[in-house]
Each structure stands twice: as C-alpha cells, then as structure tokens.
C-alpha cells in the first residue's frame, strides 16, 4: 500500500516536473540521453575498470583509469619535493591551524577575538619555523615546497596579507584627502585592469631590478608579494562596498561623540562594514585559491604544477587525465566547501541583520558576536 502511494506520487511528480508538455518531455529525453552517454562510461573508467592496486606502471591494465599513478605520486602531490622525513612538520603546522580555526568557524564560541588575535600573532612564526626550519630543525628551502602544501601556503598568506592592505586602500579611496584618494584609486584601478600573470611576471622579472644590486629574495616570497598586492586591490573594492553600506548617521554619531578619524573608523565604521563583507572576502579567497595555480607559469610547483610535471614524466606518459581528475577534485572540494560556507555566512548575516534592527540590545550582542574584528 505504502509502495503504491509512493509510486503514484512519483508518477505525478514526474508528470509535472519532467513531462508536462511535449517540449518538456523532449528535453527530459534529451537530458537522459546525455546522461546515458556520459555517466556510465565515466563511472566505468573511474571505478569499475580502473586499477587501484599495484606500485608501478606495469600494474596498469589499460582498460580504465590507473589510480596507481596517483598513488605512486601522492607524496609529491601533497608535499612537493619536501623531504619525506620532514613531512610531519607540515602535517603538524596544518593540524595546529585547523585546531585553532575550528572555534572561529563555530557561530557562538566565546573569546573569538582573543583566539583570532593569538592566531594572527603567534601562528605565522610557528608555521615559518616548522615549514622552513631553523632552531634545531633541518632547513628546507622554499624551492622544495610544492603540491597541495604550497597551494595552501600561497592561498593562506595571500588572503591574510591582502586583507590589511585592502582595508587600508579602501579607507584611502574614501578618504577626504585628495592626494591619498587619488593614489589609492590609481593603484586599485591599475591592478584590477591587468591580468594576474603580468603581475607575477613583474614580481619575478622586475622586482629584482627594483632592488639594490646584491639584494635578492626568494622566488616564492616574490610571488607572494605580487599575489598579495594584486588581491589587495580586489579586497579594497569589496571592503569599499561594506563601507558604503554603513549609514551616514553612524559617522555623524561618532562625530557627535567627539571621535577623530581613526577612532571613528576603528570603533564605529569598520566593525559594521567588515561584518557585511565577510561573504565577499570568502569569495575573494575562492578566486585566490583557484589563481594559485598561475604560479606554475613562473616556475613554482603548486598542486596543479606538480601534477603537470608528473604527467610529463616519460615513465607515466598517457595518464594525464588521472592526474587532472585528482588535482581537480582537490581544488573542487576546497572551493565548493568555501562557497557553501560563504552562503551560510550570508544567510546568517541577513538573519542577524534583521534581528539587530529590532532592538539595540540585540544589536550590541550581534556586534560583539562578529566573527571578525579589526583592532
């Protein structure tokens, strides 16, 4: 009985959603044909006919995908050319980061501001020590960093470094001082008008020219400088949107309290503006995450770069699809999760926004609850 009702309901649903008109039915049949043409062969290739067991190319039977390739190179894909005996350091640093970030992603966790401050101040030296070495740990040159590890380092440093620069540029763009404003506008529009590749070329070719003879710094660091400055311009535009959303009355209220410019910005405007732009910042982070792949053009091996190097290896020629599927899955999981997180934050912001308008008391609570505070 249950089954029949279910069946009838399913038929009714199908009639309404799939076969309501002849055109609709044709679309449904076409889509089904497309699925039939794509999905079974793809599944067959990826799973049913694929080779999972083995160590070398000899174990690939050639029917489906040969995941042995990915398995054999997994260490490289994750850590690049980082020495195998030292990889625990990378794991430890990321474990620390995740442990510190979990409470921040939690909507109502106490003392968020303190945790965030601690993270920002104490984590970078610890991470640099673990990644690069020194103080008893063997030194690992940045040229040996690579894979997913390097992707995460570039994305993480890029977003953290571009944030303060972006906020400064956004404030500068709305500054009452014409010279400051003009400089900020010029920088933002110049950077937003050119592709990241040219900025990376500039960082790798021109930055050494700009510095005095003999002063040279690391290739990775140069790329990071380029990426941070590039994304700072985009960050500035997102933050500007948030600044514009703060009502004029807030500025006037701050003025009536006798606040100067910096006090107004720090205590009144930025806390409100930044709350609104968090989804936008996550959006920038997604774009940055995807754009880390461009560093392969200047000779750094991020996840895609190391996969590309591996598929060009004569020993494994012909297995590039497996490599791309693996790299793609890695990027996709991160980006998709981040975009869902951004949607979640947007929904929560809209919710707290509505609530905050109701009472002043609750508005104060909402401000205190802000996931990101700039001090």
């Amino acid at each position, binding site marked *: 009985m249950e089954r029949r009702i279910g069946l009838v309901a399913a038929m009714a649903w199908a009639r309404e*959603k799939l076969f309501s008109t002849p055109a609709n039915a044709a679309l449904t049949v076409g889509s089904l044909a497309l699925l039939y043409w794509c999905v079974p062969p793809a599944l067959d290739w990826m799973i049913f006919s694929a080779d999972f067991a083995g160590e070398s190319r000899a174990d690939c039977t050639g029917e489906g995908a040969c995941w042995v390739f990915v398995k054999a190179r997994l260490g490289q894909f994750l850590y690049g050319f980082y020495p195998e005996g030292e990889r625990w350091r990378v794991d430890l640093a990321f474990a620390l980061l995740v442990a510190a970030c979990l409470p921040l992603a939690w909507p109502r966790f106490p003392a968020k501001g303190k945790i965030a401050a601690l993270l920002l101040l104490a984590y970078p030296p610890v991470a640099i020590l673990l990644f690069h070495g020194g103080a008893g740990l063997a030194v690992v040159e940045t040229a040996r960093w690579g894979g997913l590890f390097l992707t995460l380092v570039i994305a993480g440093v890029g977003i953290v470094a571009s944030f303060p620069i972006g906020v400064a540029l956004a404030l500068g763009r709305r500054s009452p001082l014409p010279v400051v404003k003009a400089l900020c506008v010029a920088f933002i529009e110049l950077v937003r008008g050119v592709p990241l590749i040219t900025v990376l070329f500039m960082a790798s070719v021109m930055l050494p020219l700009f510095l005095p003879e003999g002063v040279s710094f690391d290739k990775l660091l140069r790329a990071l400088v380029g990426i941070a400055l590039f994304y700072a311009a985009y960050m500035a535009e997102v933050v500007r949107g948030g600044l514009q959303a703060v009502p004029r009355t807030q500025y006037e209220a701050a003025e009536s309290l006798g606040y100067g410019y910096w006090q107004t910005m720090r205590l009144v405007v930025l806390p409100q503006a930044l709350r609104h732009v968090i989804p936008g910042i996550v959006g920038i982070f997604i774009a940055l995450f995807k754009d880390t792949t461009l560093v392969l053009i200047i000779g750094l091996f991020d996840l895609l770069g190391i996969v590309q190097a591996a598929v060009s290896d004569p020993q494994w020629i012909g297995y590039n699809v497996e490599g791309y599927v693996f790299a793609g899955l890695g990027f996709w999981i991160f980006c*998709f999760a981040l975009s869902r997180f951004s949607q979640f934050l947007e929904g929560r912001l809209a919710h707290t926004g509505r609530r905050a308008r109701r009472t002043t008391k609750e508005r104060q609570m909402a401000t205190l609850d802000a996931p990101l505070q700039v001090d």
Partner: protein
Amino acid sequence: MARPAARRVGLARIDRFRAVAVQGLVLAGVIALAAWFVGNTLDNLAQRGIASGFGFLGSTAGFSIIVHLIDYSELSSYGRAFVVGLLNTLLVSAAGIVLASLLGLLVGVARLSDNWLVARLATVYVETFRNLPLLLQIFFWYFAVLSAMPQPRQSHSLFGLIFLNNRGLYVPKPLVTADLWLVAAALAGGIILAACAWRWRRRRGGTARWEGAAALALAFGPAAAVAALAGPVTGWAVPALRGFSFEGGMVLIPEFVGLVLGLSFYTGAYIAENVRSGILAVDKGQREAAQALGLSRGRTLRHVILPQAMRVIVPPLTSHYLGLTKNSSLAAAIGYPDLVSVFAGTVLNQTGQAVEVIAITMAVYLAISLAIAGAMNLYNRRVVRIGESR
C-alpha cells in the same frame, strides 16, 4: 596643540594644516620609493649592459609565430610581433566572449527551467566549472582532450566538412576574390541603415513583427546582393585528407581551441549565474501579466523577462567579459601565441627589456579593460534609460 582642536571639529573637517601635512608626507613617501626603485633599476640595467628605451621595437624579431592575422615572418620587427600577439589576444577573447555568452544564457535559463532534470544538469555544470581553476580546465582540454584526438587519417568528422584531429579543428574556408571589401562595405552600410530605420520606427512607437524581418533584410540584403552579383565568394575550400595531413580549408590550432573551450566553459558558468539572478530579479507579476495576456513561454521570456533582466545582468556581465579577456593571458601556459606569450614571454627573454615590455603589456590590458568598461557603461546607460522611460 592642534590635536584637541581637530578632535572637536571631527571627521568632516580635519584641520587644514594636518590634512596638508599628511598628504605631503604620503606623497613624499611614494615619490621617494619610486625614485629609489628607478635609481636601483637604472643601476641594475647599466650593470647588465641593457640600454633602456623603446628602440628595440624596431629590431628584427628572428622568431616565428604560428598564428598571425597580419603578415609576419622571422624578418619582421619586435613591434610587429607585438601587434600579432595583441591581435591573437583579441581574437581568442572575442571567440571566448561569444561562446561564453551563448552558453551562459542557455544554462542560466536552463537553471530556472520547470523541468527538474534540466535544472539539475545546469546546476551541476555551474558548480563544477565554477569551482575548478581555469588553468586546470585549459590543461584538461588541451593536454587530455585535444592531444588525445586521433591522427589525421582517423579524424572525427562532421558531415565530411569539419574535421577534428590532433593537429586541430579543420573547417571549410570561403574562397574569395579581391572584391571582398565591396561585400564588407555593403554589410556595414546595411547594418547602419537597418539600425537607423529600427530606431526611427521604435521612436514612433511599436515595432511590428514583420518590421523585424524587414530590418534584417535591410541589414544583410545589400551584402547578399553584392555577393551574388560581384561573385567574390567563388566557392568553399573543404578540408580534405592528402597523404598524412589535411589540405584546403582553415585550421584552428589545438592551442586556440583548447583556450577558447576553457575560457568559455569557465566564464559561461559565471554568466549563467549572472543571467539566472537577473531573471529572478524581474518581478513575478511581470511573468504573470505576460501569461495573462496569453503570451507563450518563449515570447514571455523574449519580450517581457529578458529586456528587464538585462538591466541587472549587464553590469556584472561587463566584469565577466573583462575577466575573460584578462584570463586569455593563460595562453602562455599552453603556448598559444597571445600578447603575454609572444611579448612578455619570447620578446622579453630575447631582449631583456623587462621594464618596457611589462609596462607595454600592462598598458594594453589596461586600455582593453577601460575600452570594454566604457562601451558597456554606454550600453548600460541606454538599457537603464529605456527601463526608466517605460
């Protein structure tokens, strides 16, 4: 002391002295930094024996470029190589923009389809392509799909006219005589004429259905007539297998095809979202009113929904087009000879004129960005004006 006074007047009127002092300091800092950079650069260049200036643009390039829309050989100058690269960038961007727009419109509408399956498929497309790095997608198309195409002898063919193999996409090419410019002139004249007539009719209120057809006839008729009378197109060169490769016809090299596919599928996903949010922004009552008038779904979409949605769609669409143009610089990664690959790659490596080359390259992208932004703003203003006058 100036500080308490500044505090009292507050943010709106920071006191004059402090404003001037702060700006002077900032300006001095920026100038000092720039001067330091320039000084170091001059020292470094002198040390390496590189003469600065744009004189190198006139010297012989000495390398060949596989795709060139204008005459180019190894004996041409660096300046000409620059123009070739720029034209290739524009070519690939234009192709990408057209394909991405079509794909985005199709998928954006499909995402809102009543058909559950179609809507789901469209969502899967958007979420897949938007969350993968563009460079990965370009690599996939180029190295995994196009390089795995069969030898010319086993080409995939479409109606015996279009062939796809590991050397590229072969399409028929029109055989033209020198009179082609007449057709082009007739086409341009016809389009201008038709546009004027259309505007005139619209101002008079109302454009009937037959008038649309009339405008199309006016736009393309003259060109067709000239083409038929002067006979500049004497036939079509269909690609055909001769020995081990194809001859006749036109070949789109795999680098071009891979880049265009990557750019269009990636940007198409963004445009689809853009189209979707634009359509959703149109008030539900508009659709209901159109249906109450008995308009079919297609005509509702074309005459009621899309014209209003365009107002929401165009501003972000501009930035997607700009993004695509800038992203076409990823050509450097697969060796399609675009501006970055030819100029900021080969020319820079050969001449060592890093500052000049990078400056010119950046200036070109900046100019393209400003031009597209300007054109789109113009269009946007028109769309908004029409919307308001209703």
